[in-house]
């Protein structure tokens, strides 16, 4: 049996929209709205979905960088949902995050060596000399020259800064890393360097990743399993091969068909979705995808489909996807 390193049950994260004279919440942004999934030890589990679908909020909430609104987060059999910051501190060593923005996420006033050493200092691991040695060692692991120890973030390129962010995340030997769009800000030729590094570190350090990205080709390349999000909800979860070969949810199908392919001789059938993503403040009733779904029926507005296992770990949330993967779609008339 594969061991769950993280279990998320019915997680919700709502942000208040304040207004009026009393600055009271007048509405809620349902950024993450009742999602459940597991992450197994040693795997790369990815969350994909369009901008605003709740990927980052999910990543931050499970690390308790944001307080969950409802639901449960279980990290290696410990329910951390209601842990305070001080209760979280010893666990933080094992759970780290790499941010999307290699420019904004590093302290510009600290030299690189200090940025990488800081987590060791915070967690009181070793004395100063040992911490510095570990920082240097980690720089080598991520492919940064140790001579650069005293340079400042602005003296590095985007790819190098992302390496600094990675070094900082792995310096405590964590078990689990949330990598939030770690290559989105990078150029193609640098992207592959960083992806290779992440895959290599996973092997060497037995890391488990929650990988967040909107580039589906990248996700396909690095993931073992994938969850597809739309408007704060999970539409489908399956292992990578299964998801790409046999997408069952209408949103996943449209999303995959929209990916451009770098081969002019392949012309693919596109499912062009009409319209825009609705606001998470006032999501559609029933199935949140129904306003853009080409198969939507009356029931889709009335009843919210549940995310169910339709066989061998392939989960979908659609009224017309049945057990065993049989679909009963008919186009809207």
């Amino acid at each position: 049996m594969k061991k769950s390193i993280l279990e998320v049950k019915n997680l919700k994260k709502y942000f208040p929209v304040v207004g009026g004279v009393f600055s009271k919440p007048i509405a809620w942004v349902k950024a993450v709205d009742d999602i459940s999934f597991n992450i197994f030890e040693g795997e790369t589990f990815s969350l994909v979905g369009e901008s605003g679908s709740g990927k980052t909020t999910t990543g931050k909430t499970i690390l308790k960088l944001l307080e969950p609104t409802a639901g449960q987060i279980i990290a290696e059999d410990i329910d951390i949902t209601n842990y305070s910051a001080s209760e979280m501190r010893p666990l933080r060593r094992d759970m780290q995050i790499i941010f999307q923005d290699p420019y904004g996420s590093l302290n510009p006033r600290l030299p690189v060596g200090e940025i990488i050493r800081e987590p060791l200092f915070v967690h009181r691991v070793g004395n100063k000399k040992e911490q510095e040695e570990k920082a240097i060692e980690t720089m080598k692991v991520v492919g940064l020259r140790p001579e650069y120890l005293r340079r400042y973030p602005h003296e590095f390129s985007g790819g190098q800064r992302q390496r600094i962010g990675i070094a900082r995340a792995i310096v405590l030997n964590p078990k689990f890393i949330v990598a939030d769009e770690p290559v989105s800000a990078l150029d193609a030729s640098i992207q592959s360097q960083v992806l290779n590094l992440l895959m290599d570190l996973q092997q060497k350090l037995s890391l488990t990743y929650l990988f967040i990205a909107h580039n589906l080709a990248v996700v396909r390349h690095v993931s073992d399993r994938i969850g597809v999000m739309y408007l704060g909800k999970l539409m489908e979860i399956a292992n990578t091969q299964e998801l790409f070969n046999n997408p069952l949810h209408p949103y996943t199908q449209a999303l995959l068909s929209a990916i451009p392919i770098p081969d002019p001789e392949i012309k693919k059938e596109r499912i062009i979705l009409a319209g825009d993503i609705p606001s998470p403040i006032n999501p559609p009733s029933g199935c949140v995808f129904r306003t853009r779904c080409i198969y939507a029926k009356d029931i889709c507005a009335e009843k919210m489909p549940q995310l169910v296992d339709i066989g061998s770990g392939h989960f979908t949330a659609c009224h017309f996807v049945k057990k065993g993967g049989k679909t009963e779609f008919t186009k809207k008339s």
Partner: protein
Amino acid sequence: MKKELLLEIKDLKTYFYTDTGIVKAVDGINLKLHKSEVLGLVGESGCGKSVASLSILRLVDQPGKNAGGEVIFKGEDLLKKSEEEMRKIRGSEIAMIFQEPMTALNPVYTIGNQVMEAILIHQDVNEEEAKKKTVKMLELVGIPDPEKRFNEYPHEMSGGMRQRAMIAMALSCNPDLLISDEATTALDVTIQAQILELMKDLQKKIEAAILFITHDLALVAEMADTVAVAYMGKIVEYSSVKNIFKDPRHPYTYGLLKSIPSLITKKTKQPLLAIEGMIPSPHNMPKGCYFHPRCPFATDICRKQMPELKEIKPGHLVRCFNPIENAKEVSKK
């Protein structure tokens, strides 16, 4: 059948004279674009794509200056035209769409008024007709409820809708040349698919030529007839889209194609081919071929001399002393 030449750029140079030195953003580029053809211009951040397109329209700001070359549009050199003449050409014969629609849209006027304004300036119609045409144009670019949307301000629209409005504005004067600079980069893939579909459709209808600028090779494969690959202000390869993808000859093009994971990559979770190192600083360019510090095929001559852009087979131009002979063979090594 030989197609009619619409735009020919000859040895165009645009330099920025900064406090820290001269940045040769566009360093002698040559391009040809025929009537109703789509030319993809690809390259990484900073290679000069945007500056090249702004140079065509003579919109480069201080400290940037033209440093030579010709931009022959319909047989006449745009660089020799008066500012008055250029103003007439911009937005009528040549239109441009950008990554960020807010740079082209005026926040204080409604979408309808802005499109109508463009029509009034460039077409010989009265206000009533212009209004009708505007509504039709908004409908054509897939803006739902165009009569109502006419009165909306840019900030009231989503990113995808704003992009459509900008396209409507650009196309409402039936340009012969449309320059699209990363027009879909900021959009989600399903919205990107909508916009690309729209561009292809309209391109066929009004028979405009498109200079399609992007850093995404997959989009080039989708959209372009011919492709120019840029590296540090120079074109390093130019050919038909089929040729570029099937038979890339420049080591940089080859590296780019191999480094991006795509839906057709067979082996996932494997190291990707990475182009080593990073682009040089524009203030400290290497001698000889600009790509030599990163090139696995570099020989002595590459470190001393800049190769010419040479035709190595009909319609296929490469700037390299050691062009790749057989991409399939190389990839096995």
